[in-house]
Structures are given as structure tokens and as C-alpha cells.
């Protein structure tokens, strides 16, 4: 009896992926866990491991096809078995340059219905009695939305682009999140409209480079964040002399070959411990619901050649510094090689961006929705300081700025958060507990 292999969901906000290469050909024997194909998501190129053993009887999608999560992609069975399978659910990859990037998966609370809706994707037909613009119909088709459920705000009640883009399918009533809920997708973001700077400049003095998938994704997310999230910012300065000294001691006592603890690892730990006391800042915003995460997973922004990716230090408040240092080091390496695992990059509840290594004094970061905040870490540097006794001396200081979603929290809470974190940083022994 043949089994099907489905397009795996490789991220909470993944609705579809492009199958870029079949690693296993039809007729190849496979064992559970073998890599059978490579897919490309907005975030990375990822290898798919098979969930079945046997022989590949049939590929149900072609290389280059965009495949919704959950759709059958291959049939596996005994050699010679009839290769009958579900009709492929893929659609051909859109023409690159001429179309805007495919629109994000719709917001879904919880995540599951988004996939279900996606699979019964609309065929572009208009339900009777419904008026929708051609553009709205196309977006609905791409997002797999049912037009009959979307209220129209255009002339004569016509469904227009803004209606489709702001629509959240609500098949199931939004259940309050249970323990450790899977974070849902962020509010749907439309394609980033290209800015109207006139005709594309051309000629020998310029070079046009296509926007990469990663850049497009970052662009969409950041536009969405800047447009929809009311940011406010709070900055403080922390004394890091003790922290730097402690780091030196710890690294000096490490075994040969063990990963060195970085300043950043210590900041991650301090942040996670602080977040324990500020559950409101370790939450995600979903309009009429704010989901508080009971586990603390810290996203760490990692600069790539062509963009940015967040690796996730899981349960950072409960992970020993040395362990975390080793894990972070591996994840960062994988990210830079473009070989992240889904779990490397999924599930952050709060994010840190550290530009200290680049000798930046201070900066402010854009929140990664639906997270409540993000920390922007500057460089630790020697500066003149006024000591408690009133004398002037030299000290190590680091500036930290938190960006917070005002829909979730207010200035006083953010300030208290920094105050608490400052205590930990300035008394770093508590990070070892």
C-alpha cells in the first residue's frame, strides 16, 4: 500500500514552499529520515526528510512548483506498485520579475485553519451575490480565502484589496491558548508595494539586482511592523565591568575545546531571566487577545550576507550559560551557511539585536511582530564615569534600548524591565544560578 509524503510545515508561519530540487528520483529506495527533496521557504532552503520507507513511486509535484503545506508531494511504496495518488496541489511558480512576491499566509488563530483553508484554495470564482475587484480575487485565490466570508468596503460593498489583506479567517472560535501554544502567524502582510520613485534607473552607472526572497520577506515584515506596531523606545546605560570580568573568569576556566561564552550569551540569559518577571513583555499581540508565553525563547538576530535571520535560544532562562553558548554558536554557524533547521529559527517569544561587535553606541530596533518588544544592544566601552563617591573615573558601560509595542505595554513597564535587567547585568553572578 503506497503512502504519500506531504509538504511539511517547516515554520509556524509557513503556508507554502517552493520545491527546488528532488534529491531522490522515482525508483530510488528510501529510508525514513533520508533527505528526499529541497524546498525553499521565505526564510531558507531546507531539506525535507522522508517520513516513510520504501521506493519512490511518483513525484506529485515538479521542481519549481510552489506547494502548500500539507499537500502530497510524493508516493512511496513497494517497487512496481501502481503509482496512483492524489492530484498534485501545486501551482507553477509565479513569473519572477513581473509579479509581486506571493502574499503571506493569512493570520490564523490558531495556526491550523490557515492550512486547511489553504488546501481548499479558492479557484478565483466569485461566489454568487459577492462583488470583488479582480485584484481582491487574485489575492484571495493566492491566500486561499473564501470571498463569501469577507466583508467588502469598496463602492457598492465590493471586496477590495484592503478587505482581503486585513481579513483573518475565523473558522474556529479562537480558543484561549493552552500551555506553550504554538505561536500563530503574524497579521497578514501584503506585498511591499514598490515605492514610486519613477522609472527604474538604468545605464552604466547603476546595477539592478533582483530582490531576494529573504530580502522581500524582511521587507514585508518590517513594513508591516513599522506601519502597524506603535513602537516606543526606552534607553538605559548599564555598567558591564563586573560582567566582563566574570566572562573572563568563566572562559579562563573552560575545558579545552568548549565554546567560549560571549557577552551576547550573557545578555540573552539576563534578558530571559528578566522576562520571567515581566510576562507581559514575553507575549504576542493578536488584536483582541494578547498571548502570554510561559516559556521564554529568545530570538537572536544574526547578520547574513544578504539579510538577517533570527536564531532562537530556547528556554533561555533555564539553560546553563555554557550550554547556551555552545548551542548559540552552532545555530549561528548553520544560519550563516544557509542550513538552519526549522527549530533553529522557530518560536521566538522575544528578540535581541546586538550591534555591539560593530562598535555601535546605541540604536533602536524594529519589533518582529507579533512579539511585544526587542532589545537593541550597543557596544560595551570605556567611558568617564562619576563614581558613587562623586569622583570621576573610568568605567565600562553599555547602552541598551528596548522597543515595545504600545498596544501591549507602556513606558513604565519598559523602564522597570530595563531596571531589572540592569541589576542582573551589574550583578552577573545571578546569571550563573
Amino acid at each position, binding site marked *: 500500500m503506497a503512502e504519500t509524503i506531504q509538504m511539511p510545515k517547516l515554520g509556524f508561519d509557513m503556508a507554502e514552499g517552493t520545491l527546488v530540487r528532488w534529491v531522490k528520483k522515482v525508483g530510488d529506495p528510501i529510508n525514513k529520515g533520508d533527505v528526499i527533496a529541497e524546498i525553499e521557504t521565505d526564510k531558507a532552503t531546507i531539506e525535507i526528510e522522508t517520513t516513510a520507507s520504501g521506493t519512490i513511486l511518483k513525484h506529485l509535484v515538479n521542481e519549481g512548483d510552489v506547494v502548500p503545506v500539507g499537500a502530497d508531494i510524493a508516493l512511496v511504496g513497494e517497487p512496481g506498485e501502481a503509482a496512483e495518488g492524489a492530484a498534485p496541489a501545486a501551482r507553477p511558480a509565479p513569473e519572477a520579475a513581473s509579479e509581486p512576491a506571493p502574499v503571506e499566509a493569512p493570520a490564523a488563530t490558531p495556526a491550523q485553519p490557515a492550512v486547511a483553508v489553504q488546501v481548499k484554495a479558492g479557484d478565483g470564482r466569485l461566489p454568487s451575490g459577492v462583488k470583488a*475587484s*479582480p*485584484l*481582491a*480575487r*487574485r489575492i484571495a485565490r493566492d491566500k486561499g480565502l473564501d470571498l463569501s466570508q469577507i466583508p467588502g468596503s*469598496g*463602492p457598492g460593498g*465590493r471586496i*477590495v*484589496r484592503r478587505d482581503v489583506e486585513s481579513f483573518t479567517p475565523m473558522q474556529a472560535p479562537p480558543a484561549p491558548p493552552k500551555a506553550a501554544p504554538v505561536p500563530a502567524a503574524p497579521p497578514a502582510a501584503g506585498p511591499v*508595494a*514598490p*515605492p*514610486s*520613485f*519613477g*522609472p527604474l534607473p538604468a545605464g552604466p552607472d547603476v546595477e539592478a539586482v533582483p530582490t531576494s526572497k529573504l530580502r522581500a520577506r524582511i521587507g514585508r515584515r518590517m513594513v508591516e511592523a513599522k506601519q502597524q506596531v506603535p513602537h516606543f523606545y526606552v534607553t538605559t546605560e548599564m555598567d558591564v565591568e563586573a560582567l566582563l570580568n566574570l566572562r573572563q573568569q568563566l572562559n579562563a576556566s573552560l575545558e579545552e575545546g568548549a565554546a567560549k561564552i560571549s557577552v551576547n550569551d550573557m545578555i540573552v540569559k539576563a534578558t530571559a531571566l528578566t522576562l520571567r518577571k515581566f510576562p507581559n513583555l514575553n507575549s504576542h499581540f493578536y488584536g483582541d487577545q494578547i498571548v502570554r508565553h510561559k516559556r521564554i525563547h529568545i530570538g537572536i538576530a544574526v547578520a547574513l550576507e544578504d539579510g538577517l535571520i533570527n536564531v532562537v535560544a530556547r528556554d533561555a532562562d533555564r539553560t546553563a550559560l555554557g550550554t547556551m553558548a555552545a548551542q548559540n554558536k552552532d545555530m549561528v554557524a548553520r544560519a550563516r551557511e544557509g542550513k538552519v533547521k526549522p527549530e533553529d529559527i522557530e518560536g521566538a517569544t522575544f528578540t535581541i539585536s546586538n550591534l555591539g561587535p560593530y562598535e555601535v553606541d546605541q540604536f533602536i530596533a524594529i519589533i518582529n511582530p507579533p512579539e511585544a518588544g526587542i532589545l537593541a544592544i550597543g557596544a560595551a566601552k570605556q567611558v568617564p564615569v562619576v563614581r558613587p563617591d562623586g569622583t570621576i573615573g573610568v568605567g565600562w558601560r553599555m547602552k541598551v534600548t528596548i522597543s515595545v509595542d504600545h498596544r501591549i505595554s507602556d513606558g513604565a513597564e519598559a523602564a522597570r524591565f530595563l531596571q531589572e535587567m540592569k541589576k542582573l547585568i551589574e550583578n552577573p553572578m545571578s546569571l550563573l544560578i
Partner: protein
Amino acid sequence: MTEKIITIREALSSALREEMLRDERVFIMGEEVGVWGGTYAVTRGFLDEFGARRVRDTPISEMVIAGAAVGAAMAGLRPVAEIMTINFAFVAMDAIVNHMAKVRYMFNGQFTVPMVIRTTTGGGKQLAATHSHAPEVIFAHFPGMYVAVPGTAYDAKGMLKAAIRDDNPVLFVEHSTMLQRRSPVPVDDPDFLLPIGKSDIKRTGKDVTIVTYQKGLEWSTQAAEMLAQEGIEAEIIDLRWLRPLDLEPVFESVKKTNRAVIVEESLPMFNVGAEVAAQLQEQVFDYLDAPVKRVSAMDQPLPYAANIELMALPDAQKVVKAVKEVL
């Protein structure tokens, strides 16, 4: 390159003069082009400068003005014939459409017809029904000729010079109420030419695409200013040529704005907007977020009385209203 702010009239006049100085085969013929100096004063001084051989007054005979220009062009001259207003071009319709536009094709390329017919269009001057419409779109129906509709002094100069140098027949339509409009124009470049059949983005914006030309450009620009006060950014595309019709920038713009309004002085039935709207739904249907809207004159003859003539013509307010209807 030196630019000077000049009127459309001056732009046309300098284009003609430069081309006559450049090429001995270029000459002007038409009603009142010589002694009178042109009924719109475009050829004032030309008779003195170039003489009666090259600045030829004709009888009131539009059929032969157009037709003789065709013959002269077939025979190797480069006539610039003037038909005083486009309303009079109707009596020369056969010469223009059946001969000017077709002799090349009909005789399999044996003849070329390098000529320009200059004419004026437009209403708003209380000239009543026969003298007031903007019917240039009728002539754009026919392959074998081009139709130019410049809306600025810059375009008028570069387009007229290009039209005169091109080997194809061009109906060059000037708007009779816009001859005093000024814009910067290169004045020391005798080879300042604009490409045939290229539309031009006159204003960028992200909320709506206004497709227009000539008088419509003026109304649309005013409307865009009014809309900008309310935070609505209109992109204005000036077609500049009704044939060849360059809609690529329009398609690109509508992909961005998802809505289009076409503004023109023509009558509404079978007009430029009808063509543009048809092509929009053929080419960018899936990008339209609202029906394509047209702003044009009312579907009826124009009257004499000023108040009701204005009622029948488009204006900036009507453009604003149309834009808001598609937002």
C-alpha cells in the same frame, strides 16, 4: 544645454523654424500661414524669413491642402501642412485617412509619405457645436499614420521636430487654449527630439493612475494638487501620442496603484478612455481593485453659452470626483 521657459506657441514656432533651416525640403502650406502669420501666430515672421516658396498660403481648401501635401511628400518633399482646426479636417478625412495613411501600404512600400499635418483642437471658447470638440481620437483609429497630442511646450517642441523628421505621416494636434502655457524647453539644441510614441509619467503617486493628454493633463494636474491636500497621491501619465499608443507605463503604474482614471476632452463614446480601459482589462485585469473610470466631455454637441459649455466639459473637480469614486 540651456533651457528657457517659453510658451507652446513659441515652442512650435521654433521647432518649425529649426527644421526649415535644417532641411530645404521642409515647407509650410495652409490657410493664412503666410501673410497673416498663422491664425494662432505660430508662423508669424516666417514669410519674411523663408519667402513665399516655402511658406505657402492656400485657398480655403482642406481637401487639397491635405491631399497635395500627400503628393508632395510621395514625390520627396517634407510638407508641414496646416489645417486651421481639426473640425475642418473632417472635410479632408478622405485625403488623410484613405491617402495619407494608406498609399504606402497599398502600393507595397513604393511610396513613403514624410509629412505633418498641424491642426488645433479643443473647446471652451464659445465657438458652438461645429468648432468645439476634441475629436483627434477619430484619426487614431487608422494604422499608417501617427497622432501627436502634446500638452507642454517641452513636448510640443521635441515632438514636432521628431514628427517632421520621421518618414511617416503625422497628424500633429495642438490645443487651441494651451498655446500660452509655458514650460522649460531646450533652446540651443537644434537636434532636441522626443521619441515617437512614448508616453510620459508627469507626476508620480501611489494611490491612483490618471491617464490623460493635452487639456486633460491640465485638469489632471490641478486635480492631483487638490487630492494631495487630502493625502491622495495620483500618478499622471501623459500619453503624448494617441498612435503609436504607449500603454506600458500605464500597465506598470496600475500594477502599483490598482486603479485608473482616464481624463480627456473627447466625447465619451469610443474615445481614448474606452481603448485604454479595454487594454487595461486585457493586460492587468488581476491588478484592478476598482472599475476603470473615464472623465470626458458630455455625450452631446457643445453649446455656445459659456456656462453650459463649461458644464459639458471636464474640469479638475470632475477628475477629483472620479478619483474618489475608485478609491
